[in-house]
């Protein structure tokens, strides 16, 4: 049987006058997958999402959401897609429960008070949208986006402005939606979030996809160094230890010897041998891979250029 992705973008192009916003990008997202769309400001993320949402018309290429062309079949798209916009616009006078009833009615489904309760809005049902904090407004936007149980969910900066507890709750909700079989397109500037949540990511730069793969694949292919931090009882590594293999740079900070290694295996083995030879006792050893953020900055040449 032929593989049918939930979202398929092929050779998609969009320009505004002479400015090319998106220049022939392609990617696919499957059901039960969180697909991260990353890129600096102006990379073309929002334009791509807006064309998938049917808000804008593409200038070329093919967009497909579960067999539906967003620009030609907007009515069919509505119940397939749940969207949390970056700036979630709701009328300021609308109360939380009114918003839930209003949007569920337009999707022809029953309201979901359980979702409002889950997202901490249970005590705010009669509160008007403009009186909610930014965090609560974003939670409400998310609740409205998924209330009709859409098979494809687009989240544009879903955790921006949220506190740690709310982020954790929202991440757990995203996992649940994914486990129920929905495809999630996650556009975010938060690399830690993308690394934690996304199964695969695409990095956009100046309207092109410049890297795609799992976060682990992307971080593995970069020229970034693995950070090896060691703390010992006798601080024998505080001196000038030059014999360690694959070490690009070293420094000593707050009782930790820190090594940036191109090949952490031999480096760690050599450190342990060195400690044994000096009869020093290991207190703490940490090996940290290059992060997606570091790889992102490397790919995008600083993120903003």
């Amino acid at each position, binding site marked *: 049987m032929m593989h049918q992705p939930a979202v398929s973008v092929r050779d998609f192009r969009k320009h505004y006058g002479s400015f090319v916003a998106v220049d022939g990008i392609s990617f696919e997202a499957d059901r039960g997958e969180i697909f991260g769309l990353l890129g600096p400001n102006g990379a073309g993320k929002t334009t791509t999402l807006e064309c998938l949402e049917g*808000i804008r018309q593409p200038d070329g290429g093919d967009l497909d959401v579960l067999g539906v062309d967003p620009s030609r079949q907007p009515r069919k798209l509505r119940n397939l897609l749940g969207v949390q916009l970056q*700036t979630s*616009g*709701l*009328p300021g006078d609308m109360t939380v429960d009114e918003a839930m009833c209003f949007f569920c*009615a337009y*999707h022809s489904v029953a309201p979901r008070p359980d979702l409002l309760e889950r997202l901490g809005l249970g005590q705010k049902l009669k509160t008007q949208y403009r009186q909610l904090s930014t965090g609560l407004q974003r939670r409400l936007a998310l609740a409205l986006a998924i209330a009709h149980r859409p098979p494809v969910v687009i989240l544009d900066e879903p955790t921006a402005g949220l506190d740690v507890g709310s982020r954790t709750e929202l991440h757990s909700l995203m996992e649940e939606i994914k486990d129920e079989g929905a495809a999630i397109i996650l556009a975010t500037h938060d690399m830690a979030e993308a690394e934690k949540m996304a199964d695969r990511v695409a990095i956009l730069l100046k309207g092109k996809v410049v890297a795609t793969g799992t976060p682990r694949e992307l971080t593995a292919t970069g020229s970034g160094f693995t950070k090896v931090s060691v703390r010992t009882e006798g601080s024998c590594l505080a001196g000038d230890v030059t014999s360690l293999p694959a070490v690009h740079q070293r420094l000593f900070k707050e009782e930790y010897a820190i090594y940036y290694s191109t090949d952490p295996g031999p480096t760690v083995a050599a450190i342990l041998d060195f400690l044994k030879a000096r009869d020093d006792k290991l207190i703490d050893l940490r090996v940290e891979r290059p992060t997606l953020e570091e790889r992102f900055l490397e790919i995008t040449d600083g993120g903003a250029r």
Partner: protein
Amino acid sequence: MTAFMHHFAFEFKAGLRNATLLMMNYLFPLGFYVIIGLVMTQINPGFKQLLVPAMIVFVGMASALLGLPGPLVEQREAGIFRTFKINGVPALSILVIPALTTILHTLIASAIITATAAPFFGGAMPMHWGSFIGIALLTVFSFGALGALIGVVSANSRATVLWSQLIFLPSMLLGGLMMPLNLLPKSVLAVSALLPPARAMQALQGLAFGQETTLNPAVSVGVLAVTAVLAFGLAIYLFNWDRVNQVRRGHPLMALIVLLPGVIGIFLG
């Protein structure tokens, strides 16, 4: 409850909840009515004949021309229409439902005026109640349509105020609300005949209150009806989801077509 009913219920409640809309729908027109009822009927007892039609037209102007367009522009600018579009709210509902709820608020305020004008201020009552109700409905429908059109074509909130005042202020001065049209110079009367509020006044005075009119009241009914249909049609045709999407089916100046019935009306009387 259907999506339409949820939307209608929300918009109706917003007309009471939102301080600006509450002001335009009730506080400003009813406050003005009380002041005019107290002062004008004392200064000029003849004004009692004009009190009810003038204040009904005034209520319609305040809520539909001054109150309705603002939220439409603000919602478009705030990206609320985008959220609506993504969730399948049709453009027709976005325009028609606020217009209908504004019309309902206007009718409630009009009913308050009609019920209190005679006992409190000695205002004249209609001679033909059927015509009165029909023309009052037509008046608020045409004003609601004009308000929706202003909301659609205004580039921003400041432009909304400008367009609304462009109809509101001349209508107050030349619409026959404060003084009969027959007192105006003939050259100015042509401008009055272009204004829907002046047509509404003439239709109410002639066909509902049995008073003498300067403009033909039957032609005035026709002008109001065609204006209502044209304004709604143009509002739907020129509707734009947000300020980012510049693709519009026609230039905003197309809205001036709405003046056509008024222009033709000048020649018909």
